[in-house]
């Protein structure tokens, strides 16, 4: 005999309830997210791909960087970068909102939900948004003729993978945050900004001074971009490097999820 009634069972896959509530919250911003998902790639591609691209082809000829048009060159980098951006936005803001701003997680935790299911739900919701965002982005790239190689579609799972890895790390970081102003500043100004700018996004990493190239090596965006470039236009890359790129992203994903889930449970138990 147990004192707990048998009808009150704990839901099996609790994360899906959290996932549902996260997605409902996201739908409130539907138009905003949709507009940004479409406008962002369009505007960046036109502005950088065509605008800056025309300056580059004036200077060094139409097959300037890496033997392809500038638009084709930056396309996989922008795709991976947008995946990282949307998965990160979602994990960071949901986590801060849940622990700090509206303290929603503490309410959820009063139901059969646990730290793990809540963290899982938040992460999965971020992945849903990332997958949708990446799909829209790829479709636009296709129309710009930047996805023409036969295995270009591989760039899609690569970008999603990069989003997952970075989202997982941010989930772990954000769950520790108490001073969110400081955190958001550091993340925005000293992590995301430099990552976007110095990961070989707009020119090959090799053309940076070697001291700055280190930054690319620790950046998931660079690893994903290298893989993406291989997929979309056959950028030269050795098998060893392919393994290193994948291994890096995988380690980030696992470490991020491990520490994220652990901290969610700990913080809720406090």
């Amino acid at each position, binding site marked *: 005999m147990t004192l707990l009634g048998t009808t009150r069972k704990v839901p099996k896959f609790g994360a899906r309830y959290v996932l549902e509530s996260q997605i409902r919250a996201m739908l*409130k*911003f539907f138009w*905003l997210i949709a*507009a*940004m998902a479409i*406008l*962002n790639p369009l*505007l*960046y591609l*036109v*502005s*950088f791909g*065509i*605008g*800056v691209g*025309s*300056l*580059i082809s004036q*200077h*060094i000829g139409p097959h*300037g*960087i890496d033997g392809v048009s500038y638009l084709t060159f930056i396309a996989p980098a922008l795709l991976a970068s947008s995946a990282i951006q949307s998965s990160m936005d979602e994990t960071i803001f949901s986590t801060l909102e849940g622990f700090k701003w509206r303290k929603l997680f503490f309410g959820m935790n009063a139901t059969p939900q646990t730290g793990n299911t809540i963290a899982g739900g938040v992460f999965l919701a971020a992945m849903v948004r990332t997958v949708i965002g990446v799909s829209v982005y790829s479709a636009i790239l296709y129309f710009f003729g930047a996805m023409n190689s036969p295995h270009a579609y591989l760039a899609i799972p690569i970008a999603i993978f990069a989003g997952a890895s970075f989202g997982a790390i941010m989930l772990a970081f954000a769950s520790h945050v108490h*001073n969110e*102003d*400081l955190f958001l*500043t550091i993340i925005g*100004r*000293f992590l995301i*900004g*430099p990552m976007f*700018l*110095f990961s070989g996004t*707009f*020119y090959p990493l090799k*053309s*940076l001074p070697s001291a700055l190239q280190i930054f690319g090596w620790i950046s998931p965006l660079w690893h994903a971009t290298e893989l993406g470039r291989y997929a979309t236009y056959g950028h030269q890359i050795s098998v060893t490097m392919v393994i290193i790129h994948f291994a890096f992203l995988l380690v980030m994903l696992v470490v991020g999820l491990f520490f994220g889930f652990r901290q969610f449970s700990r913080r809720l138990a406090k």
Partner: protein
Amino acid sequence: MLLSAAVAIAERREGKFGDRYYAGRSRAVLERSFIAFKSSTWFVVLSGFVEPVLYLFSFGYGVGRFIGNIDAGSGKMVSYAAFIAPALLATSAMNGAVYDSTWNVFFKMNQSRLYHGMLATSLGPLDVALGEIAWALMRGLIYAIGFMAVVAPMGLIPSWWGVLAIPAAVLIAFGFASVGMAITSYFTRFQQMGAINIALLPMFLFSGSFYPLTVFPGWIQAIIKALPLSQAIQLIRALTLGVMQVGLLVHVLYFLVMITFGLFITTRRLDALFMR
């Protein structure tokens, strides 16, 4: 009697123009920002000029290698870094001012009810608007000086006229902050704030920061040139590169109009909102 202190102060501007809206004390509102700043995380506020510097390094030197020198208008050839540096200064003036006058103002207006408290005293709505904007401008000034201090030694400001880029950045920030605050006063939900990002992104990407507008057809150039960020870039670029013409006064006038218009609407809206 002691109790007349607050009253006597309030009577000073009595009968003067606009005494319903302006008590001549926006300094107190500015002081409030300063007190809040002292206990906030300094680092957050002061590191604001890092972003344009990073863009400058990445694009100016990274992309610049593949571009070489560039015609900055009137046949003057300059390095790519010198071409984008003034644009980045203008853009960061815009971004800072917009952030301060939208997110921050929205929070104080709707969440923390800070302005309700201020407007229950003998302050008027214009005092609040000016005081808040003044704070944004002081930040903008510090960022502009910080940026110039990094950029000038690298030889990216070929002309001594470039010093004027600092007050110009403040003027630009003033324009954006006034209009930004006016627009924010119409917002009631956080979601609407996203509309601002959507409006700013194309401006950032197409206002001639990263390449001359001549890559576009003529009619598109004309539209872009009328947008505030493009005006700002034209003004600052002319100053840092030393291309001085009387025509620059048109840009200055443009921002003076923005400031007046923005302040006018903001004051009326604050009054209407809090006098409901």
